[in-house]
């Protein structure tokens, strides 16, 4: 039986088709304003791409911030449960998951594929993709270049503000003081890595940790986080789809 998982995230919508214990395919697109429209689009693109009729799909499960808006889904599961399922499928034996998404970041403790504890960041953009997005803009570099840029820095600038808006003004003032672009980028990457590492340590994560979410695509970010935690991190081939994958696995029943 084929099942589908839709992760209606705040920034991007992800869809995964799952069959015979393998990932058939996946798609990622910007969410835009309407969660339902974005999910419907992803779903029909998936069906079309893999030449599947709607009737061939058993169950569709939704997860993510907009999960309750996905009226065509049979059921919804929280992102926490979905990520745990998805990541445990890709990395059996994983003990911890760090997910840094567009709107929040979370740390999940997993035991045999089951969630045993979790922590989400407070209601604030600190330690999320939004932090990088805003501060990269203040640095006048595309967010995708931020990590690489940070790697060439010899003299990392100190970013002291956790608040996204204040960090943005801090970047502007560092620019005004003549700091190099790469040094400020390194400071920003370090700032978010520290913030996320504190959450991971608070949850007692030590090893066998996976790093997922859109921010995990950033190699500089991954290196900084590995340095803070002192262990290598597992990063899936497509770190953005683990929530949708988990939902699709849950939909297998």
């Amino acid at each position, binding site marked *: 039986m084929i099942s589908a998982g839709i992760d209606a995230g705040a920034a991007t919508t992800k869809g995964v088709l799952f069959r015979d214990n393998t990932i058939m395919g996946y798609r990622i697109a910007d969410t835009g304003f309407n969660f339902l429209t974005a999910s419907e689009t992803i779903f029909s693109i998936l069906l079309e791409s893999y030449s599947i009729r709607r009737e061939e799909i058993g169950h569709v499960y939704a997860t993510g911030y907009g999960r309750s808006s996905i009226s065509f889904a049979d059921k919804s599961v*929280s*992102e*926490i449960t979905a990520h745990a399922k998805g990541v445990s499928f890709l990395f059996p034996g994983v003990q911890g998951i760090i997910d840094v998404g567009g709107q929040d970041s979370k740390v999940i403790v997993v035991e045999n594929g089951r*969630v045993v504890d*979790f922590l*989400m960041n407070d*209601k604030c953009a600190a330690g999320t993709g939004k932090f990088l997005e805003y501060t990269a803009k203040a640095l006048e570099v595309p967010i995708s270049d931020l990590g690489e840029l940070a790697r060439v820095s010899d003299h990392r600038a100190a970013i002291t503000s956790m608040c996204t808006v204040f960090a943005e003004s801090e970047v502007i003032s560092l620019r005004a003081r003549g700091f190099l672009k790469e040094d400020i980028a390194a400071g920003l990457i370090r700032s978010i890595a520290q913030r996320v590492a504190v959450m991971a340590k608070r949850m007692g994560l030590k090893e066998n940790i996976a790093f997922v979410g859109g921010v995990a695509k950033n190699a500089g970010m991954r290196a900084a986080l590995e340095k803070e935690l002192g262990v290598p991190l597992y990063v899936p081939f497509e770190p953005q789809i683990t929530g949708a994958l988990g939902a699709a696995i849950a939909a297998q029943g």
Partner: protein
Amino acid sequence: MSPTLQSLPFFQDSYELRIAQLQEERKRGIKVIGTFCLYVPDEIIFASGADRIVLCGGRADTIPVAEQSLPRNICPLIKSSFGAVIDACCGGSLACPHIPLIDVVVAEATCDGKKKMYELLTDYLPTYVLDLPQKPGSPEAREYFLSEIRKFARFMEQLTGNIITDEALRREIRSSNATKRLLHRLFALRKSDPSPIRGSEVLRVMQKQFFLSPDMFRKGISLLCDELEHVVSSGNTGPRIMISGCPMAAGNTKVPDIIEQKGGVIVVEESCTGTRSFLDLVDEDVDPWKALAERYLEIPCACMTPNDQRIARIVELAKEYNVRGVVYYTLQFCHAYNIERLRVQKALKKEGIPLLAIESDYGESDTEQIGIRVEAFLEMIA
């Protein structure tokens, strides 16, 4: 679908009756005391012939007024309460209707935020502050608190012109114990599985405990208990949850509402608007003053140190009410409860009981984020 409890409207209806009662009492020269905390002994107020009403704010709309005077980063309960007072005194429209009924505020030296807010309050309302020892475990602390409540009694005598006799005090102790016993009965009914009543319904009742007169409140609780004896289930079947932490003053039901909406069943609240107010009775067989001092210092508030009895009690309650998980609720910027969370979490972990920490204010902006946490927590413990 949850059954409609016939006795619940009694508590809503009694609001206007109570306001009218207080207005009428004031005309007859009876003094009305405003309070903010469980540490102020009701028994002394009533024994002096005065009446009392709780002033704790749970509404968001008075906070902007308060922030004209108070720092933004203090707890919403303090800001909401203060905003209601200053708005009432300036003739504003957001005012708490209780404020104009008050002769004197009897405050208490608990957390830093409240202590310093009370200093500002004196510009608007006469305010008496009851001191509390912060290390309540020693005989010296009890001795000191005894002298504090005697001093408070003299203040009440001067205010009302009545003498507080031992006999009157004993009578009021029996009265407040009767209320507490009824609450024991109500909470005992919640131990059954399924629980016959929703946690949010109990919270709304508990928020009226220090607002209504003791007679009115007891009548309502009796009616409710009688009715619940015949109710099998509130209709909710999800995991049994205990809420532990800060008080939820009238107007603040955000977190319990979210928990229930996500399918959790709240069966007990370890808070000022829960067990903390009634679990311990006052000893009726010893000197009433000493008995009061003893009982009130046993309140396990996080402003006390060390607060081992609270930690032990939470574990005990979690077992007694057979809960699957604990939602630890703190008002934003409430350092005492927030810091104490780690000790609670460790103690519960030893017993295999998971804890979800939620820190929130009175705003709506985090409703969705709290919802995700609660949903994931319920999935985790299901």
